[in-house]
């Protein structure tokens, strides 16, 4: 038996390693996706006052701190047993949409577009954002502009682009300035045009990737996501819904506080990332996916016109339930459009400039759960506190964690299809990395990880010899 090791896997958020085992004929026999760091947030926050949790959990990630802030703030709202004022909720939604725009733009343009536009088999030294800038400057500019647009909304609202301390238990700490609203509205048409142009272009290149679409984690699983009462896409509010691979409803209307009845977490022998599973089915068969593709599989509609038009076309092309993880990219672009449309709706809301943006209270409940959709999927923060408000216990289920079992299955499928140990090429390993990239995993988030390089792939032979590493 030989073994290939990809270590680290590149162009992802966080750190991981993939082992691929080959038999004597060079065929893949097994794969393991390892997340190699532990961070310990659930433990070291014990004893902290609960209202410090949003700022602490935000430090889990520099890309999606807003999601962590929101999930944590919602858990704190539950502990205080208060509802933030309507404008506080809308402003939280607004900053969340801005984060979706910048995060989805980062995933598509900066991390995955080098594979999609330069080719999976292109020179790895060129297959990165700088190669993209050289060969497709317009596309690179669009990516930078869309990220900038999202980040500037965050800056406008919170005065900080990364780890904004603006989201607090009970709401947000300052109202929206009308100048920021007007500036953002003025910039929206250009941002929407870029997003629409990108999705139109993406649809023209889809045919190049038939083999990848067919083999990139194209296994049926359940899907989970938040939906509103009308079956519409929800990123901030909504209730959790599970659909099976055929699209049949498995469970719905699950409020945050009941998550543990439906989601179990299995510890894995060779990874610091736990594997959440659908509890009524059990581990390891209760596999479900979250994130952009899962959300589009779970919802009936997005709820905004342009995104709904794109969703209809997406379903016409691939059916009502789309299983290939390659299509996380497509789904991400549809969501990017939805985010921009939602920003416009929120900014035009007559209440958005209201000064009443925060509710205040002390501890009124000894337990609180916050659940939102982060760009990468469902994010859950669950705290137990003592009567004075000190954290006694914390459990965080971060978006990428839900996809752990699916990522493992996808890695195996891609490795089995593309890797030929006898005629080995770098592009084969890149496809294994790329399927991980399709999920846009945030591994540093999901293990809640210390500093090491990103994802590493190692190919080992039957005698355990390392044949190749990538990363």
């Amino acid at each position, binding site marked *: 038996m030989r073994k290939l090791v990809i270590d680290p896997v590149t162009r992802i958020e966080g750190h991981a390693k993939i082992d691929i085992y080959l038999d004597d004929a060079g065929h893949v026999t097994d794969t393991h996706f390892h997340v190699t760091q532990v961070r310990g947030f659930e433990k070291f926050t014990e004893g*902290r*006052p609960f*209202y*410090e949790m*949003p*700022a602490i959990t935000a*430090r889990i990630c520099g890309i999606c701190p807003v999601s962590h802030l929101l999930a944590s703030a919602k858990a704190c709202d539950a502990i205080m047993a208060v509802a933030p004022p309507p404008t506080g909720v809308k402003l939280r939604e607004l900053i969340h949409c801005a984060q979706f725009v910048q995060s989805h733009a980062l995933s598509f343009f900066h991390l995955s577009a080098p594979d999609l536009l330069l080719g999976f088999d292109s020179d790895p030294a060129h297959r990165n954002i700088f190669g993209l800038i050289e060969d497709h400057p317009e596309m690179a500019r669009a990516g930078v502009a869309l990220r900038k647009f999202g980040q500037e909304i965050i800056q406008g609202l919170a005065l900080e682009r990364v780890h904004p301390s603006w989201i607090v*238990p009970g709401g947000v700490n300052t109202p929206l300035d009308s100048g920021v609203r007007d500036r953002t509205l003025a910039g929206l048409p250009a941002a929407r045009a870029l997003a629409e142009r990108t999705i139109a272009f993406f649809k023209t290149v889809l045919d190049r990737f038939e083999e990848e679409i067919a083999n990139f984690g194209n296994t049926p699983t359940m899907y989970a996501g938040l939906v509103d009462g009308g079956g519409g896409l929800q990123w901030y509010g909504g209730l959790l819904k599970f659909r099976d691979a055929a699209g049949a409803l498995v469970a719905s209307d699950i409020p945050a506080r009941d998550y543990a009845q439906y989601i179990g977490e299995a510890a894995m022998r060779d990874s610091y990332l736990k594997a959440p599973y659908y509890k009524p089915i059990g581990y390891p068969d209760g596999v479900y996916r979250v994130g952009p593709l899962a959300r589009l599989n779970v919802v009936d509609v997005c709820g905004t016109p342009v995104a709904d038009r794109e969703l209809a076309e997406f379903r016409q092309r691939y059916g009502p339930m789309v299983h290939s993880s390659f299509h996380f990219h497509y789904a991400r672009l549809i969501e990017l459009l939805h985010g921009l449309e939602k920003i416009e709706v929120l900014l035009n809301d007559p209440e958005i400039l209201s000064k009443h943006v925060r509710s205040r209270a002390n501890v009124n409940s000894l337990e609180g759960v916050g659940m939102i959709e982060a760009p990468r999927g469902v994010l859950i923060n669950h705290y137990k506190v003592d009567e004075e*408000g000190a954290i006694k216990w914390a459990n965080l289920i971060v978006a990428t964690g839900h996809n752990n079992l699916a990522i493992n299955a996808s890695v195996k499928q891609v490795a089995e299809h593309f890797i030929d140990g006898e005629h080995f090429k770098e592009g084969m390993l890149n496809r294994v990395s790329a399927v991980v990239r399709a999920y846009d995993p945030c591994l540093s988030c999901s293990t809640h990880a210390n500093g090491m390089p990103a994802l590493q792939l190692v190919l080992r032979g039957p005698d355990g010899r390392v044949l190749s590493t990538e990363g």
Partner: protein
Amino acid sequence: MPENISIRIDGEYVPAQEGQTILEVARAGGKYIPTLCYLAGTSSVGACRLCIVEVSGVGRLLPACTTPVQDGMSVTTNSEKLKQYRKIAVEFLFSERNHVCAVCVSNNHCELQAMAQKLGVTSVRYPYAYPKLGVDVSHPRYVLDHNRCILCTRCVRVCTEVEGAHVWDVSSRGIRSMIICDMNRPWAQASSCTNCGKCVQVCPTGALAEKGFAVDEMVKKDHNMTRLAARRGGHS
């Protein structure tokens, strides 16, 4: 009547009175000497060592806040040596406890943080002690986080000398020193506490804070305290 004397600070003659400290004379003369533990209106203890100065003829550095002036004294408040020692003092404060500005309620409103920036402390050259310390959240309105305490004892002094309650004390010695409340009880059980909040307002860091404030939000209102102390006849 205290006797008028004359001392030199950084080469300039500055009027002074017997009984004053070097810090009082320097401040009255418009001279800046950095401080952290000093709290106008309460007694001085020389705990933080930020106000160290050089005095001609004395072989060691002296804290300006507790050293009385003497006629003919010549004081240097700023030199390369003093800058280095002050930086070391601040670095020691950071390394002793768990100061994580990014997630602190007093971020951007913290005297320790501001002092580090002023003195150009961009990194800590000594190993962090990472002590495992608790947070006393028992009080209904206030919280004590030992991780952020620099043992300046402002809380001890303001409580004893201004409020007159003497809730706070320092237990143990050296690196094990801790601020304690009523013979080491949880704050909520401190029968001597009047819940006045003076300790919270004079605390230079986020160690003592009002409950419910998120990161960056705790802005201390210590100026009132200083005025109050002065009116009560404390030190100026």
